[in-house]
């Protein structure tokens, strides 16, 4: 497929869908209180740009900080679980349990414990995001070829050297894969965190606009969230290509 077609094809899908949506609403099939027309959403994106921009800032801050916290915690936890079989048995099951906690239940509790500020949102985002990174990083750490470990042992490498020279670099692709998953989850987590209690942010804006039946603005807010998620994902993909270029250049002697 040519480059241009690759860019045009998804655009065409979107245009067709939007067109159908516009026609459907314009024909009066549904009330604009339930489903705003695309042109109304676009108009709101422009007229309400100040409010949206103003509320994007705190949400973006939460998401970026939350992701960084989650990545640091995930790397530390994955390394600990990898190096110690005791930690694996003692910590892994409770860790899985944290992922089953329903966020809509937890988020309001966090607000009562930690207040209306940044902290409860960070906790929610970090909680949702760190787990996929732990899992992918651990599989990266474990992906080191056992024969490579043997080779390093004949070079007098101890546990630490093996970790540093072979296992940690092998874990980086996993960390990036997990971070890409987490970036998208972080956006949802931020909204849930804000809806539990906040005085600004896109989640807050969403709560207010939906309550006021300003559906066009609510949809415009969602549009901005989607764009932010895509941007984050693209940024991470770019960083991944820079930091771990070798995952895209596999060449195995066994195949040659």
């Amino acid at each position, binding site marked *: 497929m040519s480059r241009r077609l690759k860019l045009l094809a998804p655009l065409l899908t979107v245009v067709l869908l939007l067109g159908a949506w516009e026609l459907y609403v314009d024909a009066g099939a549904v009330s604009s209180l339930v489903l705003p027309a695309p042109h109304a959403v676009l108009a709101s994106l422009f007229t309400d740009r100040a409010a949206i921009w103003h509320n994007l800032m705190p949400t973006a801050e939460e998401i970026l900080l939350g992701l960084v916290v989650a990545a640091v915690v995930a790397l530390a936890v994955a390394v600990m679980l990898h190096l110690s079989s005791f930690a694996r048995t003692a910590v892994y099951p409770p860790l899985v349990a944290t992922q089953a906690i329903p966020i809509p239940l937890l988020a309001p509790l966090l607000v009562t414990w930690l207040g209306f500020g940044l902290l409860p949102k960070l906790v929610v985002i970090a909680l949702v995001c760190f787990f996929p990174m732990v899992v992918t990083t651990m599989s990266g750490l474990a992906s080191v*070829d056992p*024969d*490579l470990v*043997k*080779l*390093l*042992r*004949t*070079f*007098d*490498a101890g546990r630490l*050297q093996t970790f540093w*020279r*072979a296992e940690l*670099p092998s874990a980086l692709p996993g960390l990036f894969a997990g971070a890409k998953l987490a970036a998208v989850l972080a956006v949802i987590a931020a909204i849930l965190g804000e809806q539990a209690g906040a005085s600004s942010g896109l989640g807050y804006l969403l709560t207010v606009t939906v309550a006021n039946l300003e559906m066009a603005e609510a949809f415009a807010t969602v549009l901005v969230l989607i764009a932010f998620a895509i941007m984050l994902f693209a940024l991470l993909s770019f960083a991944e290509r820079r930091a*771990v270029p*070798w995952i895209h*250049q*596999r*060449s*195995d*002697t*066994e195949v*040659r």
Partner: protein
Amino acid sequence: MISLERVSRAFAGRRSAGPLTVLSEVSLQVRAAETIAVVGPSGCGKTTLLELICGLQQPDSGSVRCPPAALMPQRDLLLPWLSTVDNASLALRVQGLDRRRARAAALPWLERFGLGGFERARPHELSGGMRQRVAFLRTLLAGKPVLALDEPFASLDAITRAQMQGWLSRILEQEQRTVVLVTHDVEEAVLLADRVLVLSPRPGRVLATIPIAVARPRLRSDPAVVALRAQALDALGSGA
């Protein structure tokens, strides 16, 4: 130098089958600076024998005495995030040298190994033969008296393999290391080794030890080489 006395090794097999005996009563003496080739059918325990020599495994019975040995595994296992010079000097880094000195130690060797100009290339930019040379250099630079080479050229095409055999033969002549070379290519064994150890199918036993008293450089077409090759093949066949 290296001394194996009636070494046996078995692995816990699948539940129904019982233990899988891989090596049975293998004895072997290797003198300093000698190159010994180990040939045998696939699965007869050649890699296991090397790992015993390197101290990566312990025998179930018998004894292994061997000075420190560096392994060259069956696959090159170069680290994709390191350049040629950093891959080659990996052992030096592991042993605590800083990056600058490790590179300085490896650089003159790259030239000698025909890798000049590729110092900063990543493994995926190298040909199969070059990768194998880097892997060999990495093992050589570990500075151990014994080199344990596990089918170093098995993954290469015939032409490259022939070139690499000539090349390795020259390097080993200059380097005076004790070498245990595992291969399933009998001709390679005869071309490179001072002695060829022929193993039976699993469980590996020593079928024959054939001294190769042919002056180097050896030619594939040399009648003495051809005769020894036939002798080794005969020994291999007698175990089947």
